Protein backbone atom coordinates (compact mmCIF):
# COMPACT_ATOMS: atom_id res chain seq x y z
CA UNK A 1 0.00 0.00 0.00
CA UNK A 2 1.39 3.39 -0.92
CA UNK A 3 0.63 5.46 2.17
CA UNK A 4 1.22 2.92 4.90
CA UNK A 5 3.19 4.37 7.79
CA UNK A 6 3.81 1.07 9.53
CA UNK A 7 3.82 -2.36 7.98
CA UNK A 8 3.96 -5.56 9.97
CA UNK A 9 5.12 -8.48 7.85
CA UNK A 10 4.79 -12.00 9.22
CA UNK A 11 5.72 -10.80 12.66
CA UNK A 12 6.28 -13.51 15.28
CA UNK A 13 7.61 -13.29 18.76
CA UNK A 14 8.20 -16.01 21.30
CA UNK A 15 9.18 -15.68 24.93
CA UNK A 16 11.37 -18.36 26.50
CA UNK A 17 10.90 -17.97 30.24
CA UNK A 18 12.40 -21.39 30.95
CA UNK A 19 14.62 -23.87 29.20
CA UNK A 20 11.86 -25.86 27.60
CA UNK A 21 9.04 -23.36 27.78
CA UNK A 22 8.13 -21.40 24.71
CA UNK A 23 5.30 -18.90 24.74
CA UNK A 24 4.30 -17.78 21.30
CA UNK A 25 3.04 -14.29 21.96
CA UNK A 26 2.77 -13.29 18.31
CA UNK A 27 2.18 -15.68 15.44
CA UNK A 28 2.58 -14.51 11.90
CA UNK A 29 0.90 -11.14 12.22
CA UNK A 30 0.72 -9.06 9.06
CA UNK A 31 -1.09 -5.77 8.59
CA UNK A 32 -0.36 -2.15 8.02
CA UNK A 33 -1.31 1.13 9.63
CA UNK A 34 -2.08 4.00 7.28
CA UNK A 35 -0.73 7.47 7.73
CA UNK A 36 -3.03 9.65 9.82
CA UNK A 37 -5.46 6.97 10.93
CA UNK A 38 -6.51 5.87 14.39
CA UNK A 39 -6.00 2.15 14.49
CA UNK A 40 -7.58 0.17 17.32
CA UNK A 41 -6.22 -3.12 18.50
CA UNK A 42 -8.43 -5.17 20.80
CA UNK A 43 -8.28 -8.55 22.44
CA UNK A 44 -8.25 -10.23 25.82
CA UNK A 45 -5.33 -9.99 28.18
CA UNK A 46 -2.52 -12.21 27.01
CA UNK A 47 -3.49 -12.10 23.34
CA UNK A 48 -0.24 -10.37 22.35
CA UNK A 49 -1.42 -6.84 21.73
CA UNK A 50 1.08 -5.28 24.11
CA UNK A 51 3.86 -7.47 22.71
CA UNK A 52 3.05 -6.10 19.27
CA UNK A 53 3.28 -2.53 20.56
CA UNK A 54 6.56 -3.27 22.26
CA UNK A 55 8.00 -4.82 19.12
CA UNK A 56 6.96 -1.70 17.22
CA UNK A 57 8.74 0.49 19.77
CA UNK A 58 11.88 -1.70 19.67
CA UNK A 59 11.48 -2.72 23.27
CA UNK A 60 11.41 -6.35 22.16
CA UNK A 61 13.36 -7.78 19.26
CA UNK A 62 10.84 -10.01 17.43
CA UNK A 63 11.82 -13.61 16.72
CA UNK A 64 11.00 -13.35 13.06
CA UNK A 65 9.26 -11.12 10.56
CA UNK A 66 9.70 -7.49 9.69
CA UNK A 67 8.26 -4.17 10.81
CA UNK A 68 8.61 -1.40 8.29
CA UNK A 69 8.30 2.18 9.49
CA UNK A 70 8.42 4.54 6.52
CA UNK A 71 10.27 1.79 4.71
CA UNK A 72 12.90 1.37 7.43
CA UNK A 73 13.08 -2.14 8.84
CA UNK A 74 12.88 -1.73 12.61
CA UNK A 75 14.05 -5.28 13.25
CA UNK A 76 17.28 -4.74 11.37
CA UNK A 77 19.83 -3.31 13.77
CA UNK A 78 21.90 -1.61 11.10
CA UNK A 79 18.98 0.17 9.46
CA UNK A 80 17.69 1.10 12.88
CA UNK A 81 20.97 2.66 13.98
CA UNK A 82 21.17 4.59 10.75
CA UNK A 83 17.80 6.21 11.32
CA UNK A 84 17.96 6.27 15.10
CA UNK A 85 17.31 9.96 15.57
CA UNK A 86 14.33 9.99 13.23
CA UNK A 87 12.86 6.87 14.79
CA UNK A 88 13.24 8.04 18.38
CA UNK A 89 11.75 11.37 17.56
CA UNK A 90 8.80 10.24 15.50
CA UNK A 91 7.54 7.33 17.58
CA UNK A 92 6.15 7.90 21.04
CA UNK A 93 4.58 5.57 23.55
CA UNK A 94 1.92 6.17 26.20
CA UNK A 95 1.64 3.53 28.90
CA UNK A 96 -1.36 2.27 30.83
CA UNK A 97 -0.13 2.98 34.29
CA UNK A 98 0.81 6.62 34.51
CA UNK A 99 1.82 6.20 38.13
CA UNK A 100 4.75 3.97 37.23
CA UNK A 101 5.66 5.47 33.88
CA UNK A 102 6.41 8.93 35.26
CA UNK A 103 9.48 9.45 37.39
CA UNK A 104 8.18 10.27 40.88
CA UNK A 105 11.23 12.39 41.67
CA UNK A 106 10.87 14.72 38.73
CA UNK A 107 8.64 17.73 38.49
CA UNK A 108 6.08 17.86 35.73
CA UNK A 109 8.00 20.55 33.87
CA UNK A 110 11.06 18.31 33.57
CA UNK A 111 9.02 15.22 32.72
CA UNK A 112 7.29 16.96 29.86
CA UNK A 113 10.40 18.60 28.42
CA UNK A 114 12.83 15.74 28.90
CA UNK A 115 12.37 14.45 25.34
CA UNK A 116 13.49 17.84 23.99
CA UNK A 117 16.58 17.75 26.21
CA UNK A 118 17.46 14.21 25.16
CA UNK A 119 16.98 15.00 21.50
CA UNK A 120 18.90 18.30 21.94
CA UNK A 121 16.14 20.27 20.28
CA UNK A 122 15.93 23.96 21.04
CA UNK A 123 12.49 24.71 22.47
CA UNK A 124 10.48 26.45 19.74
CA UNK A 125 8.77 28.69 22.26
CA UNK A 126 11.92 30.17 23.74
CA UNK A 127 12.35 28.40 27.04
CA UNK A 128 11.68 24.88 28.23
CA UNK A 129 9.24 26.22 30.76
CA UNK A 130 7.20 28.05 28.13
CA UNK A 131 7.22 24.93 26.01
CA UNK A 132 6.04 22.77 28.89
CA UNK A 133 3.32 25.25 29.71
CA UNK A 134 2.12 25.26 26.11
CA UNK A 135 2.02 21.46 25.96
CA UNK A 136 0.19 21.20 29.27
CA UNK A 137 -2.39 23.67 28.08
CA UNK A 138 -3.01 21.65 24.95
CA UNK A 139 -3.86 18.61 27.08
CA UNK A 140 -6.12 20.60 29.38
CA UNK A 141 -3.84 21.28 32.36
CA UNK A 142 -2.78 24.66 33.63
CA UNK A 143 0.58 26.07 34.59
CA UNK A 144 0.04 25.40 38.29
CA UNK A 145 0.91 21.74 37.58
CA UNK A 146 4.41 22.57 36.34
CA UNK A 147 6.05 22.45 39.75
CA UNK A 148 4.21 19.41 41.03
CA UNK A 149 5.50 15.88 41.19
CA UNK A 150 3.44 12.98 39.79
CA UNK A 151 2.22 11.84 43.23
CA UNK A 152 0.51 15.17 43.72
CA UNK A 153 -1.61 14.65 40.62
CA UNK A 154 -4.75 12.61 40.12
CA UNK A 155 -4.86 9.65 37.73
CA UNK A 156 -6.34 11.64 34.90
CA UNK A 157 -3.91 14.52 35.38
CA UNK A 158 -0.99 12.09 35.31
CA UNK A 159 -2.26 10.50 32.12
CA UNK A 160 -2.52 14.00 30.61
CA UNK A 161 1.10 14.62 31.58
CA UNK A 162 2.17 11.43 29.78
CA UNK A 163 0.24 12.56 26.73
CA UNK A 164 1.93 15.96 26.85
CA UNK A 165 5.32 14.27 27.10
CA UNK A 166 4.52 12.14 24.07
CA UNK A 167 3.32 15.14 22.06
CA UNK A 168 6.21 17.52 22.71
CA UNK A 169 8.36 16.08 19.91
CA UNK A 170 5.41 16.35 17.50
CA UNK A 171 5.63 12.66 16.67
CA UNK A 172 4.17 11.02 13.60
CA UNK A 173 3.18 7.86 15.41
CA UNK A 174 1.75 7.54 18.89
CA UNK A 175 1.32 4.11 20.38
CA UNK A 176 -0.98 4.03 23.40
CA UNK A 177 -1.04 0.77 25.32
CA UNK A 178 -4.32 0.70 27.28
CA UNK A 179 -4.06 4.40 28.11
CA UNK A 180 -7.47 4.64 29.77
CA UNK A 181 -7.87 1.23 31.40
CA UNK A 182 -6.95 2.43 34.88
CA UNK A 183 -9.21 5.49 34.82
CA UNK A 184 -12.79 6.12 35.89
CA UNK A 185 -15.54 6.00 33.28
CA UNK A 186 -16.20 9.74 33.30
CA UNK A 187 -12.47 10.45 33.13
CA UNK A 188 -12.05 7.90 30.31
CA UNK A 189 -14.48 9.97 28.29
CA UNK A 190 -12.38 13.09 28.98
CA UNK A 191 -9.17 11.43 27.80
CA UNK A 192 -10.72 9.86 24.70
CA UNK A 193 -12.25 13.19 23.71
CA UNK A 194 -8.82 14.73 24.19
CA UNK A 195 -7.22 12.08 21.95
CA UNK A 196 -9.77 12.69 19.24
CA UNK A 197 -9.25 16.44 19.44
CA UNK A 198 -5.43 16.20 19.45
CA UNK A 199 -5.38 13.78 16.56
CA UNK A 200 -7.45 16.22 14.49
CA UNK A 201 -5.15 19.09 15.45
CA UNK A 202 -1.80 17.33 14.94
CA UNK A 203 -2.72 14.66 12.40
CA UNK A 204 -0.51 12.00 13.95
CA UNK A 205 -1.06 8.31 13.34
CA UNK A 206 -2.39 6.60 16.41
CA UNK A 207 -2.25 2.97 17.48
CA UNK A 208 -4.78 2.61 20.28
CA UNK A 209 -4.63 -0.63 22.23
CA UNK A 210 -7.56 -1.41 24.48
CA UNK A 211 -9.81 -4.09 25.80
CA UNK A 212 -12.79 -1.75 26.09
CA UNK A 213 -14.55 -2.30 22.79
CA UNK A 214 -17.04 0.53 23.08
CA UNK A 215 -14.22 3.09 23.40
CA UNK A 216 -12.48 1.61 20.38
CA UNK A 217 -15.73 1.80 18.47
CA UNK A 218 -16.07 5.45 19.36
CA UNK A 219 -12.50 6.49 18.62
CA UNK A 220 -10.93 4.33 15.92
CA UNK A 221 -11.06 4.35 12.13
CA UNK A 222 -9.98 0.75 11.69
CA UNK A 223 -9.88 -2.05 14.21
CA UNK A 224 -7.96 -5.29 14.46
CA UNK A 225 -9.01 -8.11 16.78
CA UNK A 226 -6.30 -10.34 18.24
CA UNK A 227 -6.52 -13.72 19.86
CA UNK A 228 -3.79 -16.07 20.98
CA UNK A 229 -1.09 -14.09 19.19
CA UNK A 230 -2.92 -14.00 15.88
CA UNK A 231 -4.84 -11.27 14.18
CA UNK A 232 -8.25 -12.86 13.61
CA UNK A 233 -10.17 -9.99 12.05
CA UNK A 234 -9.36 -6.59 10.61
CA UNK A 235 -11.86 -4.13 9.21
CA UNK A 236 -12.97 -0.51 9.26
CA UNK A 237 -14.46 -0.03 12.72
CA UNK A 238 -18.02 0.55 11.58
CA UNK A 239 -17.91 -2.55 9.37
CA UNK A 240 -16.37 -4.67 12.13
CA UNK A 241 -19.01 -3.76 14.67
CA UNK A 242 -21.99 -4.04 12.33
CA UNK A 243 -20.84 -7.16 10.54
CA UNK A 244 -18.41 -9.23 12.63
CA UNK A 245 -17.48 -12.37 10.73
CA UNK A 246 -15.05 -14.30 12.92
CA UNK A 247 -16.78 -16.28 15.70
CA UNK A 248 -14.36 -14.86 18.24
CA UNK A 249 -15.16 -11.29 17.27
CA UNK A 250 -18.84 -12.11 17.48
CA UNK A 251 -18.40 -13.52 20.99
CA UNK A 252 -16.34 -10.50 22.02
CA UNK A 253 -18.97 -8.07 20.76
CA UNK A 254 -21.83 -9.97 22.37
CA UNK A 255 -20.05 -9.81 25.72
CA UNK A 256 -20.17 -6.01 26.01
CA UNK A 257 -22.87 -5.07 28.50
CA UNK A 258 -25.07 -2.27 27.18
CA UNK A 259 -26.39 0.39 29.58
CA UNK A 260 -30.05 -0.44 29.04
CA UNK A 261 -31.65 -2.69 31.70
CA UNK A 262 -34.59 -3.98 29.65
CA UNK A 263 -32.35 -4.87 26.73
CA UNK A 264 -29.85 -6.54 29.02
CA UNK A 265 -32.45 -8.60 30.88
CA UNK A 266 -33.92 -9.86 27.63
CA UNK A 267 -30.52 -10.99 26.42
CA UNK A 268 -29.71 -14.69 26.56
CA UNK A 269 -26.83 -15.92 28.65
CA UNK A 270 -23.40 -15.36 27.17
CA UNK A 271 -21.95 -18.29 25.28
CA UNK A 272 -18.20 -18.59 25.48
CA UNK A 273 -16.26 -18.27 22.23
CA UNK A 274 -15.28 -21.53 20.55
CA UNK A 275 -11.73 -22.69 21.24
CA UNK A 276 -9.19 -21.51 18.75
CA UNK A 277 -8.19 -23.99 16.09
CA UNK A 278 -4.72 -25.43 16.43
CA UNK A 279 -4.02 -25.12 12.75
CA UNK A 280 -2.54 -22.01 11.26
CA UNK A 281 -4.88 -19.95 9.14
CA UNK A 282 -4.51 -17.08 6.78
CA UNK A 283 -6.15 -13.67 6.64
CA UNK A 284 -8.62 -13.60 3.77
CA UNK A 285 -10.16 -10.45 2.39
CA UNK A 286 -13.88 -11.25 2.51
CA UNK A 287 -15.24 -7.91 1.41
CA UNK A 288 -13.07 -4.91 0.49
CA UNK A 289 -10.87 -3.95 3.46
CA UNK A 290 -12.47 -6.59 5.68
CA UNK A 291 -10.04 -9.37 6.53
CA UNK A 292 -10.87 -12.51 8.48
CA UNK A 293 -8.62 -15.32 9.66
CA UNK A 294 -9.74 -18.54 8.08
CA UNK A 295 -8.47 -22.00 8.80
CA UNK A 296 -7.40 -23.91 5.72
CA UNK A 297 -10.11 -26.54 6.27
CA UNK A 298 -13.17 -24.30 6.23
CA UNK A 299 -13.10 -22.08 3.19
Amino acid at each position, binding site marked *: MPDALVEFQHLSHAFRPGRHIVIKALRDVSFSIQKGEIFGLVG*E*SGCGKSTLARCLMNIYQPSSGRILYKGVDLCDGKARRQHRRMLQRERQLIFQDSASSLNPRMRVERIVTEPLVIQRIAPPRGSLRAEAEHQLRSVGLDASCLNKTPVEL*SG*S*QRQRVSIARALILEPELIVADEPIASL*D*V*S*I*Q*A*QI*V*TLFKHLQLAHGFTFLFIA*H*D*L*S*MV*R*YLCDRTGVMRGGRLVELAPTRELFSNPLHPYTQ*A*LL*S*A*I*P*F*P*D*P*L*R*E*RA*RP*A*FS*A*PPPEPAREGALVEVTPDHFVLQSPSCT
Partner: protein
Amino acid sequence: MPDLLEVNRLSVRFDTPEGRILAVRDVSFSLAEGEVLAIVGESGCGKSVLCKAIARLLPKSAHVEAESILLDGVNLAGRSEREMCRLRGKLFSMVFQDPLTALDPTLPIGRQIAEAVTVHNRRLPRRAVERRVLELMDLVGMEQPQEKARMYPHQFSGGMRQRSAMAIALAASPRLLFADEPTTALDVTIQAQILDLLRDVQRKLHTSTVLVSHDLGVVARVADRVAVMYAGRIVETGTAEEVFYDPRHPYTWGLMRALPALAIEEGRPLSPIPGMPPTLLAPPRGDPFACRNEYALAIDYEQEPPLMRVSDTHWAATWLLDPRAPRISPPLGGIPHA
Protein backbone atom coordinates in the same frame (compact mmCIF):
# COMPACT_ATOMS: atom_id res chain seq x y z
CA MET B 1 -41.45 -8.24 50.04
CA PRO B 2 -39.99 -7.57 53.50
CA ASP B 3 -36.74 -5.64 53.67
CA LEU B 4 -33.72 -7.79 54.36
CA LEU B 5 -31.29 -4.93 54.89
CA GLU B 6 -32.14 -1.54 56.29
CA VAL B 7 -29.39 1.00 56.77
CA ASN B 8 -30.28 4.18 58.65
CA ARG B 9 -28.07 7.26 58.59
CA LEU B 10 -24.71 5.62 58.20
CA SER B 11 -21.63 7.84 58.23
CA VAL B 12 -17.98 6.92 58.03
CA ARG B 13 -15.13 9.26 58.73
CA PHE B 14 -11.40 8.76 58.71
CA ASP B 15 -9.13 10.83 60.91
CA THR B 16 -5.87 11.22 59.05
CA PRO B 17 -2.86 13.41 59.78
CA GLU B 18 -4.04 15.72 56.96
CA GLY B 19 -7.44 16.11 58.49
CA ARG B 20 -10.84 14.55 58.71
CA ILE B 21 -12.21 12.72 55.68
CA LEU B 22 -15.94 12.17 55.44
CA ALA B 23 -16.05 9.11 53.23
CA VAL B 24 -19.72 8.27 53.69
CA ARG B 25 -22.20 10.92 54.78
CA ASP B 26 -25.56 10.10 56.22
CA VAL B 27 -26.53 7.27 53.89
CA SER B 28 -29.80 5.41 54.31
CA PHE B 29 -31.12 2.68 52.07
CA SER B 30 -32.93 -0.61 52.18
CA LEU B 31 -32.81 -3.81 50.21
CA ALA B 32 -35.60 -6.33 49.77
CA GLU B 33 -35.09 -10.06 49.86
CA GLY B 34 -33.77 -11.49 46.61
CA GLU B 35 -33.08 -8.04 45.21
CA VAL B 36 -29.90 -6.77 43.53
CA LEU B 37 -28.94 -3.22 44.43
CA ALA B 38 -26.14 -1.64 42.43
CA ILE B 39 -24.10 1.19 43.91
CA VAL B 40 -22.56 3.29 41.15
CA GLY B 41 -20.06 6.10 41.26
CA GLU B 42 -16.55 7.25 40.46
CA SER B 43 -13.62 5.96 42.47
CA GLY B 44 -13.35 7.65 45.82
CA CYS B 45 -17.07 8.34 46.11
CA GLY B 46 -17.35 6.02 49.09
CA LYS B 47 -19.12 3.05 47.53
CA SER B 48 -16.62 0.44 48.72
CA VAL B 49 -16.30 2.07 52.12
CA LEU B 50 -20.07 1.89 52.50
CA CYS B 51 -20.11 -1.89 51.97
CA LYS B 52 -17.11 -2.46 54.18
CA ALA B 53 -18.65 -0.32 56.90
CA ILE B 54 -21.74 -2.55 56.95
CA ALA B 55 -19.58 -5.68 56.96
CA ARG B 56 -17.28 -4.01 59.53
CA LEU B 57 -14.15 -4.66 57.48
CA LEU B 58 -12.66 -1.19 57.74
CA PRO B 59 -9.36 -0.46 59.50
CA LYS B 60 -9.34 0.98 63.02
CA SER B 61 -8.80 4.51 61.72
CA ALA B 62 -12.38 4.52 60.45
CA HIS B 63 -15.15 5.82 62.64
CA VAL B 64 -18.49 4.34 61.69
CA GLU B 65 -21.65 5.92 63.02
CA ALA B 66 -25.11 4.65 62.27
CA GLU B 67 -28.54 4.92 63.76
CA SER B 68 -29.14 1.31 62.88
CA ILE B 69 -28.04 -1.33 60.39
CA LEU B 70 -30.75 -3.97 60.40
CA LEU B 71 -29.91 -7.14 58.53
CA ASP B 72 -32.55 -9.85 58.70
CA GLY B 73 -33.81 -8.36 61.97
CA VAL B 74 -30.35 -8.26 63.54
CA ASN B 75 -28.91 -4.84 64.34
CA LEU B 76 -25.27 -4.84 63.26
CA ALA B 77 -24.53 -1.40 64.67
CA GLY B 78 -22.72 -1.63 67.97
CA ARG B 79 -22.02 -5.37 67.78
CA SER B 80 -18.71 -6.59 69.12
CA GLU B 81 -16.10 -7.96 66.75
CA ARG B 82 -16.69 -11.44 68.20
CA GLU B 83 -20.36 -11.35 67.34
CA MET B 84 -19.62 -9.94 63.90
CA CYS B 85 -17.28 -12.86 63.26
CA ARG B 86 -20.12 -15.26 63.86
CA LEU B 87 -22.40 -13.37 61.50
CA ARG B 88 -19.93 -12.89 58.68
CA GLY B 89 -20.29 -15.60 56.12
CA LYS B 90 -23.55 -16.83 57.53
CA LEU B 91 -25.66 -13.70 57.34
CA PHE B 92 -23.61 -11.84 54.76
CA SER B 93 -20.38 -12.32 52.85
CA MET B 94 -18.27 -10.48 50.34
CA VAL B 95 -16.61 -10.96 46.96
CA PHE B 96 -13.74 -8.60 46.21
CA GLN B 97 -12.35 -7.01 43.09
CA ASP B 98 -9.06 -8.83 42.93
CA PRO B 99 -9.54 -12.57 43.45
CA LEU B 100 -5.81 -13.25 43.53
CA THR B 101 -5.25 -11.25 46.69
CA ALA B 102 -8.50 -12.51 48.22
CA LEU B 103 -7.38 -16.15 48.00
CA ASP B 104 -4.62 -17.83 49.97
CA PRO B 105 -1.81 -18.70 47.55
CA THR B 106 -0.52 -21.55 49.72
CA LEU B 107 -3.66 -23.66 49.96
CA PRO B 108 -5.49 -25.67 47.31
CA ILE B 109 -8.87 -24.20 46.32
CA GLY B 110 -10.77 -27.18 47.74
CA ARG B 111 -9.23 -26.64 51.19
CA GLN B 112 -10.07 -22.96 51.11
CA ILE B 113 -13.71 -23.63 50.28
CA ALA B 114 -13.83 -26.40 52.92
CA GLU B 115 -12.49 -23.94 55.49
CA ALA B 116 -15.38 -21.60 54.81
CA VAL B 117 -17.80 -24.52 55.14
CA THR B 118 -16.41 -25.85 58.45
CA VAL B 119 -16.00 -22.46 60.13
CA HIS B 120 -19.76 -22.24 60.47
CA ASN B 121 -20.37 -25.91 61.11
CA ARG B 122 -17.52 -27.45 63.07
CA ARG B 123 -19.14 -30.82 63.65
CA LEU B 124 -19.82 -31.62 60.02
CA PRO B 125 -18.24 -34.99 59.11
CA ARG B 126 -15.41 -34.94 56.56
CA ARG B 127 -17.42 -36.69 53.89
CA ALA B 128 -20.22 -34.17 54.15
CA VAL B 129 -17.74 -31.29 53.93
CA GLU B 130 -16.26 -32.79 50.78
CA ARG B 131 -19.68 -33.21 49.27
CA ARG B 132 -20.57 -29.63 50.11
CA VAL B 133 -17.34 -28.33 48.53
CA LEU B 134 -18.04 -30.16 45.29
CA GLU B 135 -21.62 -28.94 45.37
CA LEU B 136 -20.45 -25.33 45.76
CA MET B 137 -17.90 -25.67 42.96
CA ASP B 138 -20.64 -27.04 40.76
CA LEU B 139 -22.89 -24.13 41.71
CA VAL B 140 -20.36 -21.55 40.57
CA GLY B 141 -19.83 -23.40 37.31
CA MET B 142 -16.43 -25.01 37.84
CA GLU B 143 -16.18 -28.08 35.69
CA GLN B 144 -14.42 -31.23 36.93
CA PRO B 145 -14.56 -30.08 40.57
CA GLN B 146 -12.70 -33.16 41.89
CA GLU B 147 -9.60 -32.20 39.96
CA LYS B 148 -9.90 -28.45 40.40
CA ALA B 149 -10.23 -28.77 44.18
CA ARG B 150 -6.61 -29.90 44.36
CA MET B 151 -5.29 -26.98 42.34
CA TYR B 152 -3.79 -23.73 43.69
CA PRO B 153 -4.99 -20.19 42.89
CA HIS B 154 -1.95 -19.42 40.72
CA GLN B 155 -2.91 -22.29 38.41
CA PHE B 156 -6.28 -20.71 37.69
CA SER B 157 -7.28 -18.00 35.27
CA GLY B 158 -8.81 -14.77 36.57
CA GLY B 159 -12.32 -16.00 35.86
CA MET B 160 -11.77 -19.29 37.69
CA ARG B 161 -10.30 -17.45 40.67
CA GLN B 162 -13.36 -15.21 40.87
CA ARG B 163 -15.57 -18.31 40.71
CA SER B 164 -13.60 -19.85 43.60
CA ALA B 165 -13.95 -16.65 45.60
CA MET B 166 -17.69 -16.80 45.00
CA ALA B 167 -17.85 -20.43 46.12
CA ILE B 168 -16.16 -19.40 49.38
CA ALA B 169 -18.52 -16.48 49.83
CA LEU B 170 -21.55 -18.71 49.29
CA ALA B 171 -20.28 -21.53 51.52
CA ALA B 172 -22.51 -20.78 54.50
CA SER B 173 -25.53 -19.76 52.39
CA PRO B 174 -25.49 -16.07 53.31
CA ARG B 175 -28.65 -14.02 53.02
CA LEU B 176 -26.76 -11.05 51.62
CA LEU B 177 -23.79 -10.91 49.27
CA PHE B 178 -21.60 -7.84 48.80
CA ALA B 179 -19.88 -7.89 45.42
CA ASP B 180 -17.26 -5.14 45.29
CA GLU B 181 -16.38 -4.57 41.62
CA PRO B 182 -16.31 -8.33 41.02
CA THR B 183 -15.59 -8.07 37.29
CA THR B 184 -13.39 -5.00 37.02
CA ALA B 185 -10.16 -6.99 36.82
CA LEU B 186 -11.53 -9.39 34.20
CA ASP B 187 -11.76 -9.47 30.41
CA VAL B 188 -15.10 -8.72 28.74
CA THR B 189 -15.88 -12.31 27.84
CA ILE B 190 -15.05 -13.50 31.36
CA GLN B 191 -16.96 -10.57 32.80
CA ALA B 192 -20.06 -11.63 30.87
CA GLN B 193 -19.73 -15.17 32.25
CA ILE B 194 -19.28 -14.01 35.85
CA LEU B 195 -22.24 -11.62 35.57
CA ASP B 196 -24.41 -14.43 34.20
CA LEU B 197 -23.24 -16.59 37.08
CA LEU B 198 -24.06 -13.87 39.62
CA ARG B 199 -27.55 -13.55 38.19
CA ASP B 200 -27.97 -17.31 38.06
CA VAL B 201 -26.84 -17.95 41.65
CA GLN B 202 -28.95 -15.08 42.87
CA ARG B 203 -32.05 -16.57 41.22
CA LYS B 204 -31.33 -20.06 42.57
CA LEU B 205 -30.54 -19.13 46.16
CA HIS B 206 -32.58 -15.91 46.49
CA THR B 207 -29.56 -14.18 47.94
CA SER B 208 -29.87 -10.41 48.06
CA THR B 209 -26.90 -8.72 46.47
CA VAL B 210 -25.23 -5.35 46.82
CA LEU B 211 -23.16 -4.85 43.69
CA VAL B 212 -20.58 -2.10 43.63
CA SER B 213 -19.54 -1.03 40.16
CA HIS B 214 -18.49 1.97 38.14
CA ASP B 215 -19.66 0.41 34.87
CA LEU B 216 -23.26 1.27 34.02
CA GLY B 217 -23.34 -1.53 31.45
CA VAL B 218 -22.60 -4.10 34.15
CA VAL B 219 -25.21 -2.50 36.38
CA ALA B 220 -27.87 -2.65 33.66
CA ARG B 221 -27.20 -6.34 33.28
CA VAL B 222 -27.81 -7.44 36.86
CA ALA B 223 -29.38 -4.72 38.99
CA ASP B 224 -33.02 -4.37 40.06
CA ARG B 225 -32.35 -1.12 41.85
CA VAL B 226 -29.60 1.46 41.48
CA ALA B 227 -28.07 3.95 43.90
CA VAL B 228 -25.76 6.61 42.48
CA MET B 229 -23.15 7.90 44.91
CA TYR B 230 -21.17 11.11 44.74
CA ALA B 231 -18.77 12.46 47.36
CA GLY B 232 -20.01 10.07 50.04
CA ARG B 233 -23.73 10.60 49.52
CA ILE B 234 -26.41 8.79 47.60
CA VAL B 235 -27.53 11.42 45.10
CA GLU B 236 -30.06 9.37 43.19
CA THR B 237 -31.77 6.08 43.85
CA GLY B 238 -34.54 4.21 42.11
CA THR B 239 -35.38 1.07 40.20
CA ALA B 240 -33.04 0.26 37.32
CA GLU B 241 -35.71 1.41 34.86
CA GLU B 242 -36.22 4.71 36.64
CA VAL B 243 -32.55 5.55 36.90
CA PHE B 244 -31.63 4.45 33.37
CA TYR B 245 -34.66 5.74 31.47
CA ASP B 246 -35.66 8.72 33.57
CA PRO B 247 -32.63 9.97 35.50
CA ARG B 248 -33.18 13.22 37.38
CA HIS B 249 -29.83 14.11 38.91
CA PRO B 250 -27.34 16.08 36.77
CA TYR B 251 -24.57 13.73 37.90
CA THR B 252 -26.47 10.70 36.61
CA TRP B 253 -26.98 12.56 33.33
CA GLY B 254 -23.25 13.18 33.23
CA LEU B 255 -22.40 9.53 33.85
CA MET B 256 -24.75 8.40 31.09
CA ARG B 257 -23.53 10.96 28.59
CA ALA B 258 -19.94 9.88 29.18
CA LEU B 259 -20.72 6.36 27.95
CA PRO B 260 -19.38 5.68 24.46
CA ALA B 261 -22.00 2.98 23.81
CA LEU B 262 -24.86 5.46 24.18
CA ALA B 263 -23.00 8.20 22.29
CA ILE B 264 -22.57 5.93 19.26
CA GLU B 265 -26.18 4.78 19.42
CA GLU B 266 -27.42 8.36 19.44
CA GLY B 267 -24.82 9.53 16.94
CA ARG B 268 -23.48 12.36 19.09
CA PRO B 269 -20.01 13.13 20.39
CA LEU B 270 -19.02 11.90 23.82
CA SER B 271 -19.63 14.50 26.51
CA PRO B 272 -17.41 13.89 29.49
CA ILE B 273 -18.16 15.37 32.92
CA PRO B 274 -15.73 18.28 33.29
CA GLY B 275 -13.35 18.47 36.22
CA MET B 276 -12.62 15.92 38.91
CA PRO B 277 -14.47 14.62 41.92
CA PRO B 278 -13.76 16.82 44.95
CA THR B 279 -11.37 15.69 47.62
CA LEU B 280 -13.30 14.66 50.69
CA LEU B 281 -10.64 16.25 52.87
CA ALA B 282 -12.01 19.74 52.37
CA PRO B 283 -15.40 19.39 50.72
CA PRO B 284 -16.70 22.59 49.16
CA ARG B 285 -19.64 24.45 50.66
CA GLY B 286 -23.02 23.47 49.32
CA ASP B 287 -23.43 20.69 46.78
CA PRO B 288 -20.01 19.10 46.08
CA PHE B 289 -21.10 18.46 42.47
CA ALA B 290 -22.03 22.09 41.82
CA CYS B 291 -18.69 23.11 40.29
CA ARG B 292 -18.92 20.34 37.66
CA ASN B 293 -22.61 20.81 37.07
CA GLU B 294 -23.76 22.86 34.09
CA TYR B 295 -27.25 23.00 35.57
CA ALA B 296 -26.08 24.29 38.94
CA LEU B 297 -28.30 26.91 40.56
CA ALA B 298 -27.14 29.65 42.90
CA ILE B 299 -28.46 27.74 45.88
CA ASP B 300 -26.25 24.74 45.00
CA TYR B 301 -23.22 26.74 46.10
CA GLU B 302 -24.87 27.57 49.42
CA GLN B 303 -26.78 24.55 50.60
CA GLU B 304 -26.65 20.88 49.85
CA PRO B 305 -29.92 19.61 48.37
CA PRO B 306 -31.79 16.93 50.33
CA LEU B 307 -33.12 13.77 48.65
CA MET B 308 -36.35 14.76 46.94
CA ARG B 309 -39.12 12.49 45.91
CA VAL B 310 -39.78 11.70 42.26
CA SER B 311 -41.86 8.61 42.95
CA ASP B 312 -42.17 6.25 45.91
CA THR B 313 -39.09 4.36 44.78
CA HIS B 314 -37.25 7.13 42.97
CA TRP B 315 -35.39 9.86 44.87
CA ALA B 316 -32.81 12.40 43.76
CA ALA B 317 -30.79 14.99 45.64
CA THR B 318 -30.97 18.00 43.37
CA TRP B 319 -32.53 21.44 43.74
CA LEU B 320 -33.85 21.08 40.20
CA LEU B 321 -36.69 19.04 41.65
CA ASP B 322 -37.72 21.85 43.95
CA PRO B 323 -40.97 23.49 42.76
CA ARG B 324 -39.25 26.89 42.88
CA ALA B 325 -36.44 25.81 40.54
CA PRO B 326 -36.44 27.13 36.97
CA ARG B 327 -37.64 24.67 34.34
CA ILE B 328 -34.84 23.16 32.30
CA SER B 329 -34.99 20.63 29.52
CA PRO B 330 -33.02 17.62 30.69
CA PRO B 331 -30.37 16.32 28.26
CA LEU B 332 -31.78 12.84 28.52
CA GLY B 333 -34.40 10.82 30.31
CA GLY B 334 -38.10 11.32 30.41
CA ILE B 335 -38.54 8.14 28.41
CA PRO B 336 -41.67 6.40 29.65
CA HIS B 337 -40.98 2.82 30.57
CA ALA B 338 -43.19 -0.19 30.83
